[in-house]
């Protein structure tokens, strides 16, 4: 199982005054293969920076990010990202949007029969059969993020990087998509690095919750979540263990607010 590793990662940004703003310093984290790991922390703690570096979208100042031992620099075909802003191409139909992830993976315009089938089955997986020829603006926000998920999953990624994917959705849609994500993950079993600022979401989804402190971003606490899966099968949030983890995490986060 593919493993994602951050080793002594340092990242600074230029501030308007000209000096460097330290976003992440000495950040080390191992996401073991097949695990669902969530990073949570106050806004500005560098959690999105972390994900964008792992996705190869921005360079690091020093340190390394490794995928199965080899150093990552550019966006890797073994990874897929899911964004809060979704980022569907408005001129492409739903099927064509999912196809884009495959076309950029193989660097071929033309889809093979196998890829066509893959798009079909992935759309079925996220419950969008029949919407292949719709344009994004014709779908609700929740459906659009399902397309975002399908685009990521069709690439059959070893690692799924998710940047607050449900942050812009209403509470009900978010709960539904959380369950769907868990069900999908149960089938594809890729390694997931998930970013959120929603504590309940973090505990509900993850094997491990990484709590980050304020800038410069550093790991403050790591909590293992041992609640049995599949978690959409029972009322996890009513479990004593859920409440216990939530209390510990909340205390830790509050100190950073």
């Amino acid at each position, binding site marked *: 199982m593919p493993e994602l590793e951050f080793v002594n990662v340092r990242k600074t940004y230029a501030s308007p005054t000209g000096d460097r703003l330290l976003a992440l310093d000495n950040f080390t984290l191992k996401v073991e293969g097949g695990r669902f790991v969530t990073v949570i922390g106050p806004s500005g703690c560098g959690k999105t920076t972390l994900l964008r570096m792992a996705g*190869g*979208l921005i360079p690091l100042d020093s340190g390394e990010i490794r995928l199965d031992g080899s150093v990552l620099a550019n966006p890797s075909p073994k990874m897929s990202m899911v964004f809060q802003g979704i980022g569907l191409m*408005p*001129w492409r139909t739903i099927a064509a949007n999912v196809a884009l992830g495959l076309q*950029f*993976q193989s*660097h071929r315009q033309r889809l093979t029969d196998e890829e066509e089938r893959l798009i079909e089955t992935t759309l079925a997986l996220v419950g969008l059969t029949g919407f292949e020829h719709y344009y994004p603006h014709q779908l609700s926000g929740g459906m659009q993020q399902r397309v975002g998920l399908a685009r990521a999953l069709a690439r059959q990624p070893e690692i799924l990087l998710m940047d607050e994917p449900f942050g812009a959705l209403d509470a009900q849609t978010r709960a539904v998509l959380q369950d769907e994500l868990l069900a999908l993950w149960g089938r594809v079993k890729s390694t997931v690095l998930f970013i959120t600022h929603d504590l309940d979401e973090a505990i509900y989804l993850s094997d491990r919750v990484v709590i980050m402190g304020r800038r410069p971003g550093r790991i403050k606490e790591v909590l293992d979540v041992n609640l049995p899966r599949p978690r959409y099968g029972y009322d996890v949030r009513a479990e004593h263990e859920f409440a216990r983890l939530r209390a510990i995490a909340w205390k830790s986060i509050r100190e950073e607010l």
Partner: protein
Amino acid sequence: MTQSSIPLETAGTNGTRSLIVAAARNYYVMSVLSVVAFFALWQIVSMNVPPIILPTPASVIAAFVQLTASGELVVATAETIWPFVVGLAVAFVVGTALGLLLGIFRPAARVLDPYIFVFWSIPNIAWLPLFIAWFGVGDLTLVIFVFISAVFPQLLTVEAGAKEADSFLVEVARSLGGTKHEILRAVVLPSSIPYIVAGLRIAAGRALVGIIVGQLLIVATGIGYMFQFYGETLALAKYFAPLIVVAVLAVALNRAVNWAEQVLVPWKSRAFT
């Protein structure tokens, strides 16, 4: 949105006032009323002034029929349309290509932007005497003048559009592993299409002005010349015939661009229509 189904009952119960309100709610009725009112007003005014100031609608229609039957209007329209179409087509292709190049490839923009700004700032009409010296009095001059009139709006609109390709979508495409070339093709170009169509809308309007001005002032052919000739000879009833042709052309052009927009930009949700 037509609301012809709503007002019928109100009209019956509340009399004339509601009838007017009902009619005002119906776009078709409003359009017809507007046209009728326009001709009525024209008829009234023209009966009270000498025909040399304003001819009656009937005499204008008669002149239009006569000029069409004699072939004069048909020939003039053809003489106007073909340099217009050629000039506009070349301007569209060149303007779109250059606009994309300048919008995507910044060094090219840095080199060419000052020239474009200067040439664009010069009033089109100032070119005409020079073009005559270079290309003679003929269709070539007209085509080039139409081209100059239309190319800058096309170029500048497309350049602005290509520059404004959504940076988030570009980032998403990068995360999916798209190469520079692939992202250009799959993100930047499609997001420029609405701007290409918007550019065409402006360019077509400018080109129409260009061809009429060129023919009216210099080359003495086509619709533009009819304006000049019937204007100077004070044959006002006939003067209106080319005016009608230009109006029809303008409406047809607008319809054509609307149609192109619907075909080329099917993903736009239109807030107002």
